[in-house]
């Protein structure tokens, strides 16, 4: 067999190159992170204490870092800490972003998928083009657009629709506009890939059998595109939870998300064990929906478009 020739030393080399690289730069750093989340905070010179208790020589795990996420002090009420607030807020923004992207992106992908085949690549490229230019710059631009003296307020006031400028920047409005804007292509691509494969004769059949356009859409199109909807939802939701840049630029002190909290614990409070514990819990928040997704589809979400 020709195939067996490839199973000689060559195979071991080909596997080991990416394998060793990933162990060194992905698995190992992650284990360090996990380790630090279970130790005591140190001093200025060494930010954390070793896990070995030098007097007894025993391994001693500390759960205080995790405990302190859920409860402030010994008398504090459970789940009423700034960390829990930040987690809940992050999940809430991620959920709202995913829903907004779905509401805007579904009809958009649907109409692109039904456009003439000759114009579809150009329409899709127009979705991707802003995506290839700097994400940071596009978010920054919204700052100017949504500001109190910004374009939208100026236009609305010139039209006489409002007298006072609306406060949009540094609120939920600017957060959701920015996040929806950034993550919309992640929703559109899997939805398009799904909808473009759909047999639109099924809709004609539904029409011929007397279904109204809305009913046909709801009973035929939507169920058939379920896989695309779920994939798009996950692709938006998962990176949204850990968003760091958008709250920094478009959010106020009220809109802090968990990524920023991890950063502040690390660099402002210099509390490495707590920062790592927060990061571990954050991974948990992302792994759970992902595990549910795997369970139902047995496939990883990715935008194959």
């Amino acid at each position, binding site marked *: 067999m020709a195939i067996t020739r490839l199973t000689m030393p060559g195979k071991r080399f080909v596997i080991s190159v990416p394998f060793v690289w990933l162990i060194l730069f992905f698995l190992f750093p992650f284990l360090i992170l996990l380790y630090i989340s279970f130790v005591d905070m140190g001093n200025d010179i060494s930010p954390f204490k070793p896990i070995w208790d030098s007097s007894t020589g025993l391994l001693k795990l500390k759960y205080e870092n995790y405990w302190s996420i859920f409860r402030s002090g010994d008398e504090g009420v459970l789940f009423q800490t700034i960390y829990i607030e930040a987690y809940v807020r992050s999940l809430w923004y991620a959920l709202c972003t995913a829903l907004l992207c779905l509401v*805007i992106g579904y009809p958009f992908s649907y109409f692109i998928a039904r456009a003439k085949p000759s114009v579809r690549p150009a329409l899709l490229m127009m979705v991707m083009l802003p995506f290839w230019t700097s994400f940071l710059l*596009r978010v920054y*631009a919204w700052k100017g657009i949504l500001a109190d003296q910004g*374009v939208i307020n100026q236009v609305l006031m010139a039209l006489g629709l409002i007298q006072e400028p609306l406060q949009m920047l540094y609120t939920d409005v600017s957060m959701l506009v920015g996040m929806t804007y950034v993550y919309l292509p992640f929703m559109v691509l899997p939805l398009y890939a799904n909808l473009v494969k759909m047999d639109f004769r099924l809709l004609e059949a539904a029409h011929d059998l007397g279904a109204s356009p809305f009913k046909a859409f709801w009973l035929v199109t939507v169920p058939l595109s379920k896989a695309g909807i779920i994939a798009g939802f996950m692709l938006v939701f998962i990176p949204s939870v*850990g968003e760091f840049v958008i709250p920094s*630029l478009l959010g106020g002190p009220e809109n802090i998300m968990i990524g920023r909290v991890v950063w502040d614990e690390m660099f402002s409070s210099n509390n*490495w064990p707590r920062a790592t514990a927060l990061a571990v819990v954050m991974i948990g928040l992302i792994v759970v929906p992902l595990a549910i997704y795997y369970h139902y589809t047995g496939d990883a979400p990715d935008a194959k478009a």
Partner: protein
Amino acid sequence: MKYFLSRHFGKLWIGLTYLFLYLPLFFMVVFSFNSTRQDAVFTGFSLRWYEALTRDTKIVDGFWLSIQVATFAGVASAVLATFAAFVLVRYRRFSGRTLFSGMVNAPLVMPEVVIGLSLLLLMVGVQNAFGWPQRGMLTIVLGHTLLGMAYGMVVIQSRLLEMDRAIEEAAMDLGAKPFQVFFLITMPNILQAIFAAYLLAFTLSFDDVVIAEFLSGPGVNTLPQVIFGYARRGINPTIYAAATLLIVSVTLVVVGYSVWVARQTRRREREIAAATRAELAALQAR
């Protein structure tokens, strides 16, 4: 009448969504030519922000650093992604395959904050033990390669999966050694995907601010880091000028690349058609 309405609803929806997607880009291009710092009223045409841009050493230095980081990270990502995709597609069974595929894919879902934080902890540990490396360009390249490799792998993997294995087997039957098969048969077949993976990794690196913020050292700032610093301080039309230049160059590259791909595809189709015709003619002649 119903079809007429629904067709227009579709066009309207597509148009409004494109407006949403392109509004910030238009906004930055227009106000990069504004004569004052104002960014709600266009007070007059001027190139002063472009002039300010060329004199801004932070932005210029950041730009060159970003180009270097993105080039290195792009090449490293493309090479490692090729290895990883090849392993996942061709070696169905080896010990540690589950761990391997998990590790390759994990950076796709890992928050950038976590990637940055864990690599920072590694770097600090290594530096304490060996006194090297200083946080700077090298560490940023490492972080970006981790991300770029994961995305690049997805691109190359899908190309490898649809590739016809028969030609590889034919080459092997004709006596080609495995590395010859790879470099003479497999590589040319997936070259376009490898290049796409490189471009993707380059863009991710050129765009990233979070991992760079964690892994860069004092005085080493990539372009996104410089812009992030400015952006948090308030309105600065110099950034709009930088954005405009970036938008123009990205548009040229993307349009150029898709024209190139379209032409390649057409050429291949023409060649296949010509070969088929020649074969038919030969058959008829017989």
